[in-house]
Structure formats: C-alpha cells, structure tokens
C-alpha cells in the first residue's frame, strides 16, 4: 500500500495537466459552436484565403 504515497502525487500532477489543457481549450474557443464545422461544406469558398 506504500505505493499510494507515490501514486497520489502522480495523479495530482496528471489532473493538474488535464485541468490546464481543459482551460486552454475553453479559452481558445475549442468548445464554441461544436456543430459549426459540419455546415462548413455548404459554405462557398470566400476566396480571400489562399
């Protein structure tokens, strides 16, 4: 059971990383308009990129 002393700090670090990734994703609009990209194929190419 001594392994807990190692595993729990490891899990704390992993969760810390997961939380950081999650916050980054929300702040960078990764969860905005989740269904938007499905409709992209109907949009005409605006031509201003390229």
């Amino acid at each position, binding site marked *: *059971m001594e392994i*807990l002393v190692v595993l729990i700090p490891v899990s*704390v670090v992993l*969760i810390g990383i*997961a*939380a950081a990734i*999650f916050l980054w994703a*929300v702040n960078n609009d990764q969860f905005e308009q989740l269904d938007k990209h499905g409709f992209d194929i109907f949009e005409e190419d605006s031509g201003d990129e390229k």
Partner: protein
Amino acid sequence: MSVCTISVSDMHCAACAGKIRRALTTLDGIEATHINPVRRQVLVEHGRATDPLQILNTIESAGFTPTLAGLDDHDERQRDLLKRLGIAGLAMMQVMMAAIALYAGSFDGIEPAYERLLQFTSLLFTIPVVCYSAVPFFTSALSSIRGGGLNMDVPIALAISIAFSVSLHATLTGGSDVFYDSVVMFTFLLLGARYIDNRLQRRFDLTGQLLSALPSTALRIEAGERQPVPVAELAPGDQIWVPEGAQIPVDGTLDGNTALLDEAVLTGESDWVEKQTAETVYAGTLNRGAGFGLTATRTVDESRIADIAQLAEQAEVGQARITRITDRIAGIFIPSVLALAALTFVIWQFVDPSRALMAMLTVLVVSCPCALSLATPAALTAAMTRLRQLGVVLTNSEALERVLDVNRVYIDKTGTLTTSRPAILHTEVLDSGMNQAECLTLATALQRYSSHPYATAFEHAGADSGPGWTVEDVETVTGGGVRGWISADAGGPSAEFRIGSASFAGASGEADDRSVYLARAGWVIARFDLSNQVRPDAMASVTALKNLGIAPVMLSGDSPERCAETAAVLGIDFLARQTPEAKLAAIHADQQRGARVLMLGDGINDVPVLAGADVSAAVVEASDLVKSRSDVLLLSRRLAPLTDLFRVARQTRSITLQNLIWAAAYNLTAIPVAALGLMPPWLAALGMAASSTLVMLNATRLLSVAPTEAAPGMEA
C-alpha cells in the same frame, strides 16, 4: 419616454426580480419596470430626465451587477460556467475515488495514516472546487443578503460551506466524518444544471436569432465595382449587389427586372415570392434566384427586420400575470426552506445526531424553487420565439393568455380572406371623348399616391404618363380616394381629377363598393370594376379555426350581396357595409353574450374597433398607428399564422401547467423525504438540477409546434 434594457447576469430567481423591482420604485421618473428572469433582463421605461446610469447604480446598490444590454454577455457567461464546471468535474472524479476508499475503510477498517492521506487528498481537490467553481453561488448569495433579501443561491451556498467547514474541521482534528464528496458533487451537478439552462436559453434568444439573419457585409456598387462594406455603413440611396443565395442586407427597392425571394424570416411564409422592378425588398430575406441590384431606401437600423426585433423584444421582457403570482410563491419559499432546514437539524439532534447534518444539507440542496420560478417564463419565452418563426409577433405577452379565451374572430376582409391584389375586371369609359388607355393612364397616375389596397390594381395598369405630364396638389382623402391636378404639358391648363369611391368622385345611381370611379372636374369619366378572389389558403385556415372551436366572422365595407358571395364560399358569418361604430357595437354585443373577440384589422378606421376587442391583431402592412395599438402582429397576409397563434397559446397553457404541477410536486415530495433523512445527498443534488432542467426542456417543446398546413384532410 425612453426605454432601456439592462442585463443582470446574477438575477437567478423570482426573489431577485422582486428586489430589483422594489429598488427601482424608489427612483424618480421610472414609469414601468418589466423583468424577464429567463433572459435575465430588466426593461425600464423612464422619463427623459432619468439617467440610465442612475438606474444601473440603483440596481447595483440592491446587490446585483447590471450591464446595459446589447453587449453579448451570454457567450462570456457560458464560457465562464464551462470552465468552472470542467474543474469541478475533474476534481469530482478524484474526490469520489478517495471517497470510495474511505467508505470501504470505515466498514473494513483502515490504517489511520492512510485515512489521513486520503482525507488530505480529497481536501486538496475540493479546495479549487470551493474556491473557484462554487464562487458564483457564494457571490450571488452574498449580494442578495447584502441587498436585504434571500435568493435561491443562499441555501446552496449554505449547504456547500457548511459541508466543507465540517469536513475541514474533521480533517484537521483527526476526525473521520468528511463530506468532501458531497461538496464537489453538489457543486458539479448544480453548475451543470445552470450550464444546460443557459444553453437552452440561447435557443429562446429571439432577437439574437432575428438579427443574425442579417449579413455583416454587403457589396456596394461604387463606380461599377462591387466593393464589400460593413452593413452598418450602408445609407439610403446606395446601390447594392445581392448575389445568388445571399441575404439582402438592408431594405430597398429592386433595380433588376425580377427577383425570387425567400421571405420566411420575416413573414413565416415558406413559399418563395417573386418581386418586380421598384418593389420593396426587405433586409434579412434570402435571394433564391439570380443576383440582382437594389437601391437602399433605409439604413439597417430602420429596416423592417429591426422594427420587428424591437417589438418582439419589448413583448418578451414584459411579464404576464401568472409570472407575478409565481414570483410571490418563490419569494416566500426561500425563507421557509431555511427555517425548515434548521428545524430538520434540531429535530435530528434528538433522534440521531450523527445524521442531523446530512439531513439538513439535503433539505437545503433539494428545495431550490428554481423550477417553480422558471415554470411560466420559460414557456412564455419559448412560445413567443416559436410564434415569431411562424410569422406572428406578440407585442404584448399578456395577450397570449387572453387569446386562450377567444372564441370569435372578426376578420376585416380586405386582403386577408381575399387576395391582396385586386385586379381590374372591367373598365367602363363613360365619356365619349376618352379612350380606355387614357383613363387607365390617368387612374394609374393618381392611384400611385394612394395606400388603399385597391390602388395596387392600377400599379401596372396604365402606360407611363407622357413626358410633359405633371400631377400637382395631390391629396388623399381617407374613405374617399385621391384627388389632384393633372396637366398634359407642363405649365399648360390643368384639371382636377378624382379617383375613388362613387360618392367621392360624384357618381350617381347605384354605388358599388368594388368599383372605382374616375372623375374630371366633377364629371365621372370612367368606372373600373375590381375583383377580389378568395385567397387559396383562406379556406383551410377558416376550417382550422372552426376546428379549434373559434367562429370566424367577416367584416367588410362591401355590399351585402358581394359579402354573401365570399362568405358562402368560405362558409362563415359576415357583417357587410359596417361603419367602425357598428363594428364596435357588434363586438360589444358579442362580448355581452359572453364571447371573447379577436379582431384582425388593418385600416386606421379600425383603431377604435381594435381597442374594443379582447385581443387586437393587425397585419404587418398596417399603418404604424394600428400596429402600435395591436397585441398581435401577423407578418404576412395569410390567415394560417392566426390559427398557429391559437394552437401555440393552448400548447403554452398546457406546458405551463405541466411545469407548475411538476415543480410543485417535486418540492412537496422532495422536501419531506429529505427532512426524514431518506434521501442520499447525490439524489438531492441530481433532483434539484433535474427539476429546473426538465422545466426548461419541457418549454423547448413549444419551439417545435408544427405550423398549420393546408392539409387535404382538413376540409373534412
């Protein structure tokens, strides 16, 4: 009088709404306050002397954070909730894991060192939940207490902080009763419910949907080149190109020959309409045909779509009577809940002190009256959004309740039952010196100034007037016609021409209301017989109304014979050749007999009649005066949206009732069960979250009420 709309993001419940309303009554110059708890908005009608800043300050001193609406704070709030929810979720997984070990340990024995380790691990993961995720509950509860009231976050904040401090105390003093799992679970589930409710609310966001129908840029034709410019910069007179499949950016007149448009966003009518040169096209509608040019006649803000959005907004923020009743119920509710929770704790002290704390926490969490206070506003808001999509704008949200009682509909015939475009059936020239073409040209020249539906019959009837023609001193006479001075060449002799009803033009003999007379200098020179046809969809709508138990009655200025003709086709009652006074008397007589009357009118002379009816409706082409006096605005000339109105109103009543019964039943059963200690804490949090989400979900059912179709089976 001015109106300002204020968003109050931390107004979660009826008690808050009541507090804001009370705070605003202390301010001078406030004429009316309308609160919409669903959209978290306050609409204040105030005198010119009142500064909107003062209103903001007043709301702030009542313990809220107001912002002037118009800024899209919805996305920001949603993102903030998502972050708090995600953190709570991640933490909950860890705390639950430790909790399982701790529960197992309390049954099978656990080494004190490991128990400490697990408790501290739980504490470590609970701290971000309490200090970050649960913060909205604390700030909202605190600000409500500071403002001298209690909102529904008070019980939640109490439950979270009591559970956390008891656990913290146990962890630090070596006790074994920790409730970290309850703390994170309460927070996660309650935040989850709030997040979902917020998302659902967005579907009710009517104004946002309407204005999102507008493109953000337009192609302005500058020196033959199509330049993209922001829509807000467009001014009347600008030439604009609308490509195939694009939305029209602003109201204007068509320059091309024809255009095929989808006006569903404005009228709810799914059939595409063809527009001719110089006809008005509206912002937000969709170009289904080839690209065309248009000349802007208005700016975006003045376009019809913006008008409709504003009307809808006002109605939406207005509150219905039922809402106020629920407000009062919820206002009494929270203090009672707190008292009940305290009582539970005290009684359990005598029965089984070890279960007292848990029972009290469960009562606090389970008894939130959110479902109760959302029940009516959620349904009303959803109903209004759906009606707008179907082509009906409510300018007064209380009208939806009055619509329920209506069992008689007076329909002003012109345009709604018969085609809006009368055609010239026959031209009779009564002056030997004139020919038919000349008469039509003269009539067309004069009728251009008239807004009477009959005038549209002349729109393309006559040739364009000759090059030297002048039409001067034009005057339109309501109920009569148009008169003006026309001369064949500029500066030459001119004569007074009149076009209009028989009496106006000076015709003698049998007057016929479906004929238009043209007179020169007092002598009738031509008679135009017009025909009106029964609109193809009117039949189905009339049948649908009858199936709903509503008797339609046709009102008309036409002769009884002509009315009887149309009425017989439609199978409805009619009142022919009525003055406004007589129409009003007829409505009063019906009301005396216990009928509730909806009046659909479109002329200025109908204003007193509209005012006398229980519910007044107007078509969108009606004059501004009529529209401002109407409870209901039909966005097209079809009658089908009117039947939709009745169907949605009835559906709204049953959904509101279901919501109220569900909310009341939930609170009445959950609280005793929780007080008796029979409810596990996870079920309490889930039940509370589910109760309000269910109410919102039930309301969204209104968003999918199907439109009345002219289904073949309907005639039966």
